[in-house]
């Protein structure tokens, strides 16, 4: 029987290999908060197997689960059978969009990016009191969340770069649009071209970004291959900052939340910790850390499409912070900061920062 959908053409073997052992239940953040088996990887694979068998069709009834996945990849990491569920889900979403079946939030996002520079459809970029599009050694790429939702944190990161005398420039950046590939659509060629042109125009040889999702997009998506072709490196800010000395410390009990996009997806676990250890000798790991880190619940579009569950996932992560008694939670991803901060209960007294933001504050206090 000829495969009807692309997901089957590409991933039939993997879907068949799912042995339905259920071990993914232990690590799926969506399942962990809802306790609804339809949401976790096994449930999704059972559904896709029925699609492959022809007993059901891809249709709107499946949106609730096939579009509700943060793509954190904890399931893939722990699957005894080696099934890469997030990859399969991303392809299924494209198949669903092809047949006109898609979550309205993502359809909306795709439309927004056709006529706006960012996922929030904001028209005025935040003024970070710095010139854009200069010639410089580095481009600092902020990303949509950092530009329009966590602008305070971004300002502090830029202040830190200034303190460290980094020769950088902002650009008239637009959404990297990598997220569209994950939610059933395609990267936006116009936006890619704008980013590429503007980065190249600065003459910079390195792009630094605070958004691990943007850094993944720039590094991995073929549409951005022009960067490497022009000898331009892309670094996440923790990779850049780890070699600096800051000359400040705090004795607060500090912990670190590994963002999925930085940790599990890129294998960057130690650089953030190296920075933290320099400034916070009193450090404690969360129960689930590094490759086992719990997703904050924002990724894969879930924050926009399933806000209630997204916040519930963040709350669950913050319970682990309470467990270790940390006073400060550090991370380096604006999406994580945004979701965790939104989810924090008033009675939870710890503070949530990006590392770069926190270092800047310490340096400011020391002055």
């Amino acid at each position, binding site marked *: 029987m000829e495969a009807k959908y692309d997901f089957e053409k590409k991933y039939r*073997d993997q879907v*068949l*290999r799912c*042995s*339905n*052992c*259920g*071990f993914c*239940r*232990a690590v799926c953040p969506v399942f962990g908060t809802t*306790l*609804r*088996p*339809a949401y976790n990887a*096994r*449930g999704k694979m*059972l*559904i896709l197997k*029925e699609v492959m068998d022809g007993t*059901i069709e891809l249709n709107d*009834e*499946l949106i*609730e*689960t096939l579009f509700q996945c943060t793509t954190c990849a904890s399931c893939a990491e722990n699957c*005894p*059978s*080696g099934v890469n569920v997030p990859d399969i889900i991303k392809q299924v979403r494209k198949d669903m969009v092809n047949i006109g079946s898609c979550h309205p939030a993502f359809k909306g996002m795709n439309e927004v990016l056709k006529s706006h520079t960012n996922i929030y459809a904001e028209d005025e970029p935040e003024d970070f009191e710095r010139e854009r599009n200069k010639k410089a050694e580095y481009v600092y790429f902020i990303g949509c969340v950092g530009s329009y939702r966590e602008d305070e944190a971004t300002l502090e990161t830029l202040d830190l770069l200034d303190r460290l005398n980094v020769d950088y420039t902002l650009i008239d950046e637009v959404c990297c649009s990598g997220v569209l590939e994950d939610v059933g659509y395609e990267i936006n060629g116009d936006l890619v071209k704008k980013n590429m042109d503007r980065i190249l125009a600065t003459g910079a040889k390195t792009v630094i970004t605070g958004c691990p999702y943007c850094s993944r997009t720039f590094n991995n998506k073929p549409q951005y291959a022009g960067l490497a072709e022009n000898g331009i490196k892309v670094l996440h800010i923790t990779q850049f900052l780890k070699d600096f000395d800051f000359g400040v410390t705090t004795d607060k009990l500090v912990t670190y939340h590994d963002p999925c996009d930085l940790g599990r997806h890129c294998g960057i676990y130690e650089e953030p910790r190296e920075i933290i250890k320099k400034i916070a000798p009193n450090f404690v790991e969360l129960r689930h850390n590094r490759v086992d880190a719990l997703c904050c619940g924002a990724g894969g579009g879930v924050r926009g499409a399933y806000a209630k569950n997204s916040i519930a996932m963040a709350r669950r992560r913050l319970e682990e912070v309470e467990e270790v008694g940390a006073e400060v939670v550090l991370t380096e991803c604006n999406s994580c900061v945004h979701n965790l901060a939104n989810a924090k209960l008033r009675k939870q007294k710890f503070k949530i920062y990006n590392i770069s933001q926190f270092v800047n504050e310490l340096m400011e206090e020391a002055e």
Partner: protein
Amino acid sequence: MEDKVKKALIDIVGEDNFTDNLIDLISYSKDASEHKHRPDAAVWPGTAEEISAILKLANMYRFPVTPRGAGTSLAGLAVPEKGGVILDLIRMNKIISVSVTDRLAVVQPGVVYADLERALEPHGFFFPPDPASGTVATLGGNVATNAGGIKGAKYGTTKDYVLSLQIVLPDGRIMRTGSKCMKSSSGYDLTKLFVGSEGTLGVVTEITLKINPKPSLSATAMATFEDVEDAGRAVSEIMHSGIIPSALEVVDQETLIAINQNTDLNLPEVEAILIAETDGHTREETQFQLNKVIDIFKKNNAVTVKQATTQEEAEALWTARKSAYAVMSRINYSLAVEDLSVPMSKVPHMLKVISNLAKKYDLKIPTVGHAGDGNLHPTISYDSTNSDEVKRVEQASVELFEKVIELGGTVTGEHGIGLAKARFMPLEHDPVAMDVMRSIKKSFDPNNILNPGKMALDA
């Protein structure tokens, strides 16, 4: 499902705890076995009273009810074979109390094994039956199957630890069995009847478990054997040598080949390896026991023997055994995980029988197991889309179990009968025993609404 039944269920559990959405029906149609059947609806009850009301409703309208934990059953225990309503107990997941002085823990059925383990750790206690699915399996499921695990050889299985249960009977009445005492001889031992009854006699809503102080030290050794029967003989001898290792596991050649194909552990592809662990409170004690084990390994022609000198080395030795399921599931699309047990003296012969069957039926049957209690897991890896192969798997399974029964064994050491082994029940149990089991079922559940179609109880 009739509208009035749906409405009645929603009245009992609340709208948020009822579903008849397609995505849920599909998700509940399977467990970790090869069996599949959709329910008509699923509910997430929160109390024994809600379950009682649901079962009364089920008797009134004659719809089947299938209790379910994490759905990790390897035998189809949690598959709603006759449709009806799934009772997903995952929301009843409180650890109600832990009492070190009384040496017990009281839990709801939806508590995940790993969460109980974590709660007991700070007290220096543990709950010994440790199923491989412990990161997700629930205590309710452990009770339903009388789950075992790697520590079974020394510490026994779930039934040795259940002191008391709260049960909702199929007719909706709620009762308690047993007591919080370490021992009791009062009345029929109803607790033991329910443990291992696979959700066919009642729904467990609260479990009182005996917990053990956890030995602080352990010693681990691995031995390789060129002849699988030598390994089997070593197992037998160890288990009657006077000491009891806390674990004694076997990994066969097919498994070793699969491990090497999927990892860089680079294990020798010998006919069998044995991994043994001894535990205790002093180095001398654990070493004394392990020395006996090592002597027996050598006496039985072990080619190499290696003792772990550090915690990391011990974990590395165990990786071979613990990665078995993962690597087996990558050989082909499907796994038929068998779970036979034979008397200890028959272990060597049984290992040979399995490898002969693999040759006869041209199948890959990697085997690992709890050799220390005679419980082996030959795991047939096959292409479920190839009908000829599927037929050979069935033939091999039948011949395997005929052999097991011939040797005085049982078709399931710990996974349960469910659907997967129902056809072998008459092979293992004589007609009178089958009749008595069916009478018990009928006495508890005259309308056959609770997990029907399992264990060959439907005559």
